[in-house]
């Protein structure tokens, strides 16, 4: 079963625009929601993460918004740059440390 659903599957944004990727989770035992960034030919790397006791976390141009009641969270990339072009994965994990990923979003930033 897919415990974390991610959309859209692909996204094209103009340089300087805002990129938004959405995720929804089913497992209420999840208490940690990271986002990973993957460049071609590489393994994913942690970008930013949030716990459900806060509604927003910002690191530079990257912001996570979290809605616990709706079981949804999203990644916003402000002032998107060509170097942000990559595949982004949301994920969830809980006490059992079973790390489950969404389907991924291929982001392309056009110059």
């Amino acid at each position: 079963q897919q415990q974390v659903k991610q959309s859209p599957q692909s996204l094209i944004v103009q340089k300087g625009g805002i990129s938004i990727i959405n995720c929804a989770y089913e497992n209420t035992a999840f208490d940690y929601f990271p986002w990973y960034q993957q460049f071609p030919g590489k393994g994913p790397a942690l970008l930013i993460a949030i716990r459900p006791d806060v509604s927003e976390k910002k690191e530079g141009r990257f912001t996570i918004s979290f809605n616990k009641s709706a079981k949804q969270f999203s990644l916003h990339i402000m002032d998107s740059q060509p170097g942000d072009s990559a595949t982004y994965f949301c994920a969830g994990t809980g006490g059992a440390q079973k790390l489950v990923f969404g389907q991924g979003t291929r982001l392309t930033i056009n110059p």
Partner: protein
Amino acid sequence: NAGVTQTPKFRILKIGQSMTLQCAQDMNHNYMYWYRQDPGMGLKLIYYSVGAGITDKGEVPNGYNVSRSTTEDFPLRLELAAPSQTSVYFCASMTGGPNTEAFFGQGTRLTVV
């Protein structure tokens, strides 16, 4: 600092052959994971381990086996390879606990023909 090391990087198998994908980490992490990533698809959890001697199934365990005899190593065994197992395989390790981070290997690209 090597982090998570996967071998081999590439492999072509014939249908019915078996092989072991190796994964080693030098960060003393308790938690280790195996994922497969199909083209244009997400990361699907095959097996994971919360410590030496303890393993559990993920979302897609059929056709695979794992063992965890040491903290450092977490090999993935493919028995009777099938074309459906053509994929990129990633191993990851994680400390666990609050604000944890998973570290991934570079991946193994496996083709079954």
